[in-house]
């Protein structure tokens, strides 16, 4: 891997949250929950004190996946559903970087569902923030994997989807994520705190953020009244975490699971040159 000189921690100026924002105006609708998630991410970066050049945010396609452009750190706006694969490659090739992945519920749980499972399993030290609004916004309002089965708001599924909604937290737990939490875009400080904890926790950290869509799911304005702080403390116990997730109505906020698995670490020793490797082919 490329050797990157260790960063001198002294003399590095402290950056405020606004220093992690770019001057691009988001394409999001006024009132979209994603504005507040952007603020949470930049606040978290400020708290973590990561220099801009040593952090990267990777996304796929969708409203929320536009987020890298609105930050001032390195970013990659890739293809639909593959943010976690791209982030995994970056982190394994460059373990010195702080790598965030971000996107929506369609990007992460539908087209990218397989990568979500395997990123949880692989447990690379990444933090994945899913802005879940239970709808496809960019394509103008179709049902997503987390949409309730009886939602009739889309022309594609006028009688509801008839399909069981995806349970992101329980799936993440079953697949092996090491840190699992839920936040709410109406509580940017709470989300920022979860992101800080997720980044600091080794391995794959998954944070579902209920981030309302004002345009296609206006009824989500009521989420503010429905969310509540989880009454439970975070647990490293899989069975207990699973029970709480399955019993939850999807509106409890906080850290559900704090795993103790070590993060995936690639070997880094260099003990041969290419010329030495070649010798195996000699007769």
């Amino acid at each position, binding site marked *: *891997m*490329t050797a*990157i000189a260790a960063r001198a921690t002294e003399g590095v100026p402290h950056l405020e949250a606004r220093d992690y924002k770019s001057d*691009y105006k988001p394409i999001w609708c006024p009132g979209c929950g994603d504005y507040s998630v952007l603020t949470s991410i930049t606040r978290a970066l400020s708290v973590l004190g990561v*220099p*801009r*050049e*040593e952090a*990267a945010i*990777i996304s796929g396609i969708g409203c929320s996946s*536009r987020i*890298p*452009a609105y930050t*001032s*750190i*390195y*970013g*990659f*706006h*890739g*293809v639909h*559903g*593959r943010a976690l*694969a*791209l*982030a*995994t*490659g*970056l*982190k*394994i*090739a*460059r373990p*010195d*970087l702080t790598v965030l992945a971000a996107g929506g519920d369609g990007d992460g749980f539908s087209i990218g569902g*397989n*990568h979500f*499972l*395997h990123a949880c399993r692989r447990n690379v030290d990444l933090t994945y923030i899913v802005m879940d609004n239970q709808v496809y916004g960019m394509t103008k309002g179709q049902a997503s994997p987390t949409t309730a089965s009886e939602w009739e708001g889309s022309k594609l599924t006028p009688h509801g989807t008839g399909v069981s909604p995806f349970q992101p937290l329980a799936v993440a737990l079953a697949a092996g994520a090491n840190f699992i939490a839920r936040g709410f875009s109406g509580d940017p400080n709470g989300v920022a705190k979860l992101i800080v904890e997720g980044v600091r926790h080794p391995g794959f950290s998954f944070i579902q953020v209920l981030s309302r869509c004002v345009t296609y799911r206006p009824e989500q304005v009521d989420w503010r009244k429905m969310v509540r702080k989880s009454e439970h403390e975070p647990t490293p116990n899989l069975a207990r975490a699973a029970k709480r997730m399955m019993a939850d109505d999807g509106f409890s906020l906080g850290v559900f699971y704090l795993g103790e698995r070590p993060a995936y670490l*690639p*070997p*880094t*020793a*260099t*003990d*041969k*040159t*290419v010329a*030495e*490797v*070649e010798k195996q*082919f*000699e*007769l």
Partner: protein
Amino acid sequence: MTAGQMLLDSAARAGLHGIMTRSLGPQIRGGEAAAFLRLSSSDVSSGGDRVDLLFAFDWLSTERFAAEIALGPESLVLSAGDAGSPPEWITESGACCETLPIKEMLSEIPGGRPNMVALGVLARLVGLEQGSLQPVIERALRRKGPEALAASAAAVGAGFDASDAFGAAHRLDANGKTAGRWNISGNEAIGLGALRGGVRFVAAYPITPATEILEWLAPNLEHLGGELVQAEDELASINMIIGGSFGGVPSLTATSGPGLALMIEALGLSLASETPIVVIDVQRGGPSTGIPTKSEQTDLNIALYGLHGDAPHIVTATNSVADCVQTTQWSVHLAETLQCPVIVLTDQLLGQMRAIVDRPPELKLAGGREIAPAGVSNYQRYAVTKSGISPMAIPGTAGGEYVADGLEHTPAGRPSSQAEDHLAQLDKRQRKLDGHDYGDLWADVEGEGDIAIITWGSCTGPAREVRARALAQGLDPRLISLRLLSPPQTERFRKAIEGVRRALIVEQSHSRQFYHYLRAFYDLPPEVQVFNRPGPLPIRPGQVFEALVNGS
């Protein structure tokens, strides 16, 4: 298969050249398998026309490869004594058939195996000394213990002694020269070329017949501080290497046709975001699942034209086992220098071929990835430059923070749907490929005659042999084997073809993909003839030679 590899190894140690290809049935493990060896005191470039020596362990399995085994009156066919009479397709060929009482021979050698008897017989028939086999036996079977080793040596010896009855017509002159010689497979050669090119990150999903590249790279990358990740699928593989390359580490994946099909979307991402990657495609029979274990040159169209949008990228092709090292190293260099995806086309025949070759020299290439310096200010990732190449900021570089994007963008990397931005970036991405000097590596051009064989990939081996035969008969056909398929080198091709009145195009494709590609991009001579065969049947030099001299 083991005996075949040991025979190749023994021949190499005696100073012979050789190649070995293998052909397998569809079984997961076991089942019929055939090892094809061609040994010679001079360089070997193809599997040849005729089988001189065939050892059949049983007729039923042998029959499954009948289409790949061409016999003639000069052929010697040996079989185990208890296998019964040879089938008609063997006897009709006029081959001389002999049997060996293998069972009786082994009755005195507990633990001795028929394949070791065959090894002894064949080694003696091609003129090897018994002593040259001993170190090979020891190396191949050491882990099976001293008893198995002794039994194998005895079985080889029994075969050796028995072979005198079959004459000396097939003996080769072995000069004992082994200095600088390698024993390497095409897939291993791809792996080595990647390492020479600087690749230190690989993500891939297992697929026949590309898996050996990954199996070779995993431990060897580790020695160099690199890493191979087994991804969950090909979509993940290619996106992972885009991530690794974005991080500044030269990155590669290897796959076959079905995997390449899955990777197409992200190839466009690599191209639009100008993140260099290399994708190796070890072609197999297609379409769909096709014939996974056998060779064909039919991914040319998808490699050239599979991407949506106006998507200039590089496609290269390996044309021999040794060339797999060179072309892969060059391809990594091109990807890094031109910040674009490179698809390297190779195939099952070359990939799973094992060859005795002179050590392929390392290419000395100037260039590589142009990096934005630390402390850069007003950085524009996609700056519109004269060459089309814009310095790339690697994470960790202060001042270079940018967002790589598959959306069309402004020079600063900001998403844009404006016509002028689209045009500027389309021009830039085309310009950097068109303006690059690809040098002599674009093709192998040999000879001066007014008839040319135009080919690519694994058909180059037989074509080279055809040229050698023609030279021996006083003809001097030109050989043009294209290594750089995209971007087309129109001017170079024009020069290469100067004075040619007739061209014979050779390819392993039913629909003539290569011919249509040549028609699309190059001016061809007045008379054009196509020799095309679908896989998995090998392209035999004799058939191509016929086409060359008869002109039909």
